[in-house]
């Protein structure tokens, strides 16, 4: 069946090629064309993008707005290439969210920083033809040159539908290529189609409006064309917007000429008086035509009623079982991250220690050797050790996304989220924030309401990100005893889970608070697509995980390396002769700074040494670990404890005068609580600044989080002291 489809596809290609050749007299395609790939969410857009570009991708941001811009290079058979832009998934060209607005703006050539694409490849999910053709019909209306990648024909086939690409192509007047992107089927054909010159569909707008509406629409279009010098296509798009919406009249008075607004007002009155629902008439008319296209190009063999996905959903979205499963999954995930990562972490740790020892024997003693071994290597090494945990975290999150479970998580969590006044969709940014608040904050772009988006951005950094993991891991490994709880859970594992839960609870509480006070608004409607469950694609998950792990390593190699060297300097100078290592550290610049803030952090149970760590990690949380690595290495290099692990060194550390240990279980817990709640991340501040277009919200965020961290830690410390006495 599939083979037949692909065979007929070849025929289309041949016909198309001969046609275009005739039209363009064998004209070679221009060398660097700009092609955009567009499609509904879950239509397999990213899989197709990956298949077309391979690893030749780069991720950047659209300037001004932090929506990830993913570009890649497609290399054609003859060695020429084109730039491919992956646009955010969208259901229509009527933008509802900032994300969809980007897609629309780029397509209409309104985005200032991105050129208008020469043509677009629209990914159409064959198993969901109606809704996907809705977007196609809008693109055709706009006269944008177009190729359709009829994707997931295998899925359609399985659910008893056979879509004929030839028929579809004839109906739409557009080149249609059948693909199964995640298996690489049809990718070669698609590339060839993209290589040939692509033109707009010769069959312009085929759907028709009811007579009365059409008359009004035509008139308005003429007025728009005269008043604003719009093209036929643009004026049609604008006319629909104006006729549909009533708010346009109030909010865009300056955008339109008075005669346009005057006419729109009359149109509204006239259509309303005939009882025409201006909202639905355009959508319905489009769907009317889509129905026809589907009837011609698709054969439904048997109607699959209940799919496997549905059966799974009956359990996994159940209000009790679904929730229990979700919590169990999260618990398992964090337990696994902690235990699986242990062995590779030890290898890396041992490797770094061995490397340090090697350098120590090879190099002459002196400041340079100290700088390399105790500054750079100890600092960077302390952070790089956590690579396995970061890797597993992203691996798990990638799998949740790829299996389709992520949307279910939003669905299940909507009940909880709606209690704090947010949408279930707000849970996805929070879940991403478990990895990093930056993609988390960027994921808020799918949230339609501005206020809800802001609330989600404000609280997302409270969710424990991967940069906190090194801090938790170090503290837990050093101070939380290995004990079994209830026979199955380990105490360290449970401590880790509680830190994550604390962050989540704080995020939800503050979301509720902000929704009640600063950013009042009603709870938004939950409407969300739940893609069918599928086995995760190993390749794409690994690629994603690798990309993120690499970014983490890159930060360790640049930013953390720099900070470690500066810190080594601050912790080594000014040099005092005949001082013990402990006295030396105390008198150093870093020691002085630590002492300076000691009165402020003393109520939290932190001494000056932890103070150095807190100052050092203001810009980035995981620097705390490298700071500890650096200062303990400097101090212990001379006392013969150099070959102990950092956790052992911290465990043994005590005040030389009072004999009081620097860290106790309570300090470790307080420190973790502080890191759960505090901002301590410059990149998040920068992203917030860009996302909100100003300093107001990022500054507010720093202020509230710092205050929260201080108060929270203070309370935990006091309660802890009471319990211990």
């Amino acid at each position, binding site marked *: 069946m599939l083979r037949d489809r692909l065979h007929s596809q070849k025929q289309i290609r041949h016909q198309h090629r001969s046609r275009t050749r005739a039209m363009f007299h064998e004209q070679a395609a221009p060398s660097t064309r700009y092609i955009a790939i567009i499609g509904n969410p879950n239509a397999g857009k990213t899989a197709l993008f990956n298949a077309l570009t391979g690893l030749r991708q780069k991720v950047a941001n659209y300037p001004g707005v932090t929506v990830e811009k993913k570009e890649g290079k497609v290399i054609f058979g003859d060695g020429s290439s084109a730039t491919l832009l992956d646009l955010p998934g969208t259901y229509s060209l009527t933008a509802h969210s900032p994300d969809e607005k980007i897609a629309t703006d780029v397509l209409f050539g309104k985005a200032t920083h991105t050129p208008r694409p020469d043509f677009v490849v629209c990914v159409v999910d064959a198993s969901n033809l109606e809704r996907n053709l809705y977007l196609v019909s809008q693109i055709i209306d706009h006269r944008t040159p177009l190729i359709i990648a009829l994707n997931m024909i295998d899925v359609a086939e399985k659910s008893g539908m056979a879509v004929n690409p030839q028929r579809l192509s004839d109906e739409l007047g557009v080149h249609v290529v059948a693909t199964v992107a995640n298996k690489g089927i049809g990718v070669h054909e698609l590339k060839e189609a993209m290589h040939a010159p692509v033109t707009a569909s010769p069959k312009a707008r085929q759907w028709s409006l009811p007579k009365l509406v059409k008359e009004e629409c035509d008139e308005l279009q003429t007025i728009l064309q005269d008043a604003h010098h719009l093209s036929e296509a643009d004026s049609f798009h604008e006319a629909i917007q104006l006729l549909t919406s009533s708010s346009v009249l109030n909010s865009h008075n300056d955008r339109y000429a008075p005669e346009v607004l005057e006419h729109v007002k009359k149109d509204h009155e006239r259509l309303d008086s005939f009882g025409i629902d201006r909202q639905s008439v355009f959508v319905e008319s489009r769907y009317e035509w889509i129905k026809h296209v589907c009837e011609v190009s698709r054969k439904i063999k048997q109607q699959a009623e209940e799919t496997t996905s549905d059966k799974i959903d009956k359990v996994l979205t159940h209000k009790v079982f679904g929730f229990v499963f979700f919590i169990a999954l999260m618990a398992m995930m964090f337990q696994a991250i902690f235990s699986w990562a242990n062995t590779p972490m030890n290898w890396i740790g041992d490797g770094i220690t061995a490397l340090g020892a090697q350098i120590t024997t090879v190099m002459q003693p002196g400041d340079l050797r100290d700088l390399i071994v105790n500054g750079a290597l100890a600092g960077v090494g302390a952070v790089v050790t956590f690579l396995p945990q970061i890797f597993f975290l992203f691996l798990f999150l990638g799998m949740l996304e790829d299996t389709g479970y992520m949307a279910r998580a939003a669905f299940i969590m909507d009940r909880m989220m709606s209690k704090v006044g947010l949408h279930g969709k707000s849970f996805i940014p929070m879940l991403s924030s478990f990895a990093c608040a930056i993609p988390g904050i960027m994921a808020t772009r799918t949230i339609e309401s501005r206020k809800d988006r802001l609330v989600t951005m404000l609280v997302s950094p409270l969710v424990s990100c991967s940069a906190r993991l090194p801090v938790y891991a170090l503290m837990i490994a050093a101070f939380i005893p290995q004990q079994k709880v209830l026979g199955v859970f380990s105490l360290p594992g449970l401590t880790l889970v509680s830190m994550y839960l604390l962050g989540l609870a704080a995020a939800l509480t503050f979301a509720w608070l902000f929704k009640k006070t600063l950013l009042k608004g009603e709870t938004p409607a939950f*409407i969300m697509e739940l893609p069918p469950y599928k086995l995760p694609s190993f390749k794409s998950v690994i690629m994603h995980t690798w990309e993120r792990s690499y970014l983490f390593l890159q930060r360790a190699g640049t930013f953390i390396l720099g900070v470690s060297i500066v810190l080594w300097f601050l912790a080594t100078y000014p040099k005092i002769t005949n001082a013990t290592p402990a006295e030396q550290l105390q008198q150093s610049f870093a020691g002085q700074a630590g002492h300076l803030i000691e009165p402020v952090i003393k109520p939290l149970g932190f001494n000056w040494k932890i103070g150095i760590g807190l100052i050092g990690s203001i810009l980035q949380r995981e620097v705390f670990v490298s700071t500890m690595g650096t200062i303990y290495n400097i101090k212990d290099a001379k006392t013969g404890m150099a070959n102990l692990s950092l956790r052992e060194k911290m465990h043994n550390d005590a005040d030389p005068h009072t004999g009081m240990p620097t860290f106790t279980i309570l300090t470790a817990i307080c420190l973790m609580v502080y890191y759960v709640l505090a901002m301590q991340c410059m990149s998040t501040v920068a992203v917030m600044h860009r996302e909100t277009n100003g300093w107001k919200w990022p500054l507010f965020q720093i202020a509230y989080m710092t205050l929260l961290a201080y108060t929270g830690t203070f309370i935990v410390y006091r309660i802890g002291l009471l319990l211990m006495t």
Partner: protein
Amino acid sequence: MEISHLSLSEIPAGKKARIHRLLSKPDVSHRLRELGFLENAVVRCVVNGEGNLIFEVCNTRIGLNHSVAQTIKVSRFE
């Protein structure tokens, strides 16, 4: 046989319904229509627990919360 004046939230799992009217706010209705919940369309309920609901529309599963489902007026479709 069609029984009118039901809302989508009252359709039990496994049953189908034909949509009559959307009473939600204009932007919400617009999004619903774009996703296929338009007048005269037939949708099938996949999950109807006490919380959120899942419907099949144009071969996709769309999750809705209770309050949205209540604004969609339907009739049973056998």
